[in-house]
């Protein structure tokens, strides 16, 4: 038997924008076991419920992560609105969908850029981020922020998008989609990318389900679970299907994201077409008393918020289980038995967001 060596991977590594550490137990070039550890950037944001009132906690939730901020804000709002039995105006529901899907597109484009870079395609990386930049300009024009949107509030949204602006936004989005069409072909058809990601980071359908994987990591193993299908916000009025792949590897996870970008464009077009007129918020009085588990679909997968109010301005408990945290177990399983050279690609394939996982 070959001798075993432990190689530390992270917290600093070119494929890791954020710190996570893995102890890789290797035998020759094969990874026998991967042991993860966290805590380099743990902020204890959940404890702030004792110091910030429930309106302020929406801002805190948005700052859990710079990429999924919109849906974090929306998640805590949903939970509180459900507890307080607040019926959010229809227009606000559609606006939330539009901004959520913009958030998904910019997150996936960011990941595709990183994936291209990891495969050695620097120009493709730059093209992905060039397109993403155009989308961020729309987000900035409609929300005032590029990554922290700050538009969700309990009872609706803080901002509206004027009907007269919608037409121009759709024209720009269609241009972006056309541009993206060319880039997506490279991910779909290029031999090198296919060769780098295929048959790497295998996660069977059974394992993905039993290990509690979420998002593209779960759907790339052929499991059709997408929290948007629960119909929250205005999703119940829109037509879409959970996108799955059956290759159960890194290439499948890449393809799910490539296809989900087109789906998000389509959802925005549908929402814009059906956007009703009317107010975007209602006045909120009183304090939340009760508890609720909210589940939404982040770009990285299902996110869960447990919200408990006790009738005061401060929530008693706010807990966020983020998709990256759920995908750590599946990641450990994927790494067992892989080649050492494939570790960076496999880690990247779950789209790790450590600031989410550490909250």
């Amino acid at each position: 038997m070959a001798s075993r060596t432990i190689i530390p991977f992270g917290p600093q590594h070119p494929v890791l924008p954020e710190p996570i550490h893995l102890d890789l137990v290797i035998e020759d070039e094969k990874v026998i076991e991967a042991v993860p550890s966290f805590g380099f950037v743990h902020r204890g944001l959940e404890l702030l419920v004792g110091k910030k009132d429930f309106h302020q906690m929406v801002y805190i939730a948005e700052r859990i992560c710079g990429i999924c901020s919109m849906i974090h804000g929306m998640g805590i709002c949903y939970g509180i609105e459900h507890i307080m039995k607040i019926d959010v105006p229809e227009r606000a529901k559609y606006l939330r969908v539009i901004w959520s899907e913009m958030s998904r597109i910019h997150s996936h484009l960011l990941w595709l850029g990183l994936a291209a870079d990891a495969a050695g395609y620097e120009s493709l990386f730059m093209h992905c981020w060039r397109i993403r930049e155009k989308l961020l300009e729309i987000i900035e024009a409609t929300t005032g922020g590029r990554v922290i949107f700050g538009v969700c509030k309990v009872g609706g949204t803080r901002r509206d998008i004027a009907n007269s602006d919608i037409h121009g936004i759709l024209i720009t989005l269609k241009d972006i989609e056309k541009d993206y069409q060319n880039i997506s072909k490279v991910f779909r058809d290029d031999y090198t990318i296919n060769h780098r990601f295929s048959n790497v980071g295998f996660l069977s359908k059974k394992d993905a389900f039993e290990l509690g994987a979420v998002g593209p990591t779960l759907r790339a193993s052929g499991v059709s679970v997408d929290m948007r299908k629960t119909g929250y916000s205005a999703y119940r009025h829109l037509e879409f299907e959970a996108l799955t792949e059956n290759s159960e590897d890194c290439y499948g996870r890449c393809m799910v994201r490539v296809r989900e970008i087109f789906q998000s464009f389509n959802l925005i077009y549908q929402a814009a077409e059906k956007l009703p007129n009317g107010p975007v918020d209602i006045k909120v009085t009183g304090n939340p008393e009760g508890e609720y588990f909210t589940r939404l679909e982040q770009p990285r997968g299902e996110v869960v918020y447990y919200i408990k109010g006790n009738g005061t301005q401060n929530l008693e408990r706010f807990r966020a289980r983020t998709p990256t945290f759920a995908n750590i177990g599946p990641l450990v399983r994927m790494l067992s038995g892989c080649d050492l050279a494939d570790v960076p690609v496999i880690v990247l394939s779950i789209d790790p967001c450590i600031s989410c996982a550490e909250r």
Partner: protein
Amino acid sequence: MNMNQEIKELKENELISNVSRLFKEGYRLVQISCSKSDKLQLDYSFDKEYFLLNLRLFLSLENPEVQSITDIYWSAFTYENELHDLFGIHVREINVDFKGNFYRIQEDAPFLNSDSIQHGGKE
């Protein structure tokens, strides 16, 4: 909003049998969380076809202890190590035990010892 969910309270000795049953019935482990009040409230959340079932049990604040479910749901070790590191709960027979080093934080069980997590002030 179509988010069906149910909370079912259990005693600690009923946890493993209930989790085993859910595993056999094809439920996916969604999360495990803890909340502190005058007791520790543990929620084990499971999903099947978008229905969320929460198994809830309560532990005392002094020497809280619970049996691991990692024999059934292997990947629960992340949640259980989190319970240990943030709330000081001793999880028995956990498959991957980081012994307090899962989160590299300065303080032991900060969520157990902090008063700020409960009973906010203003009415």
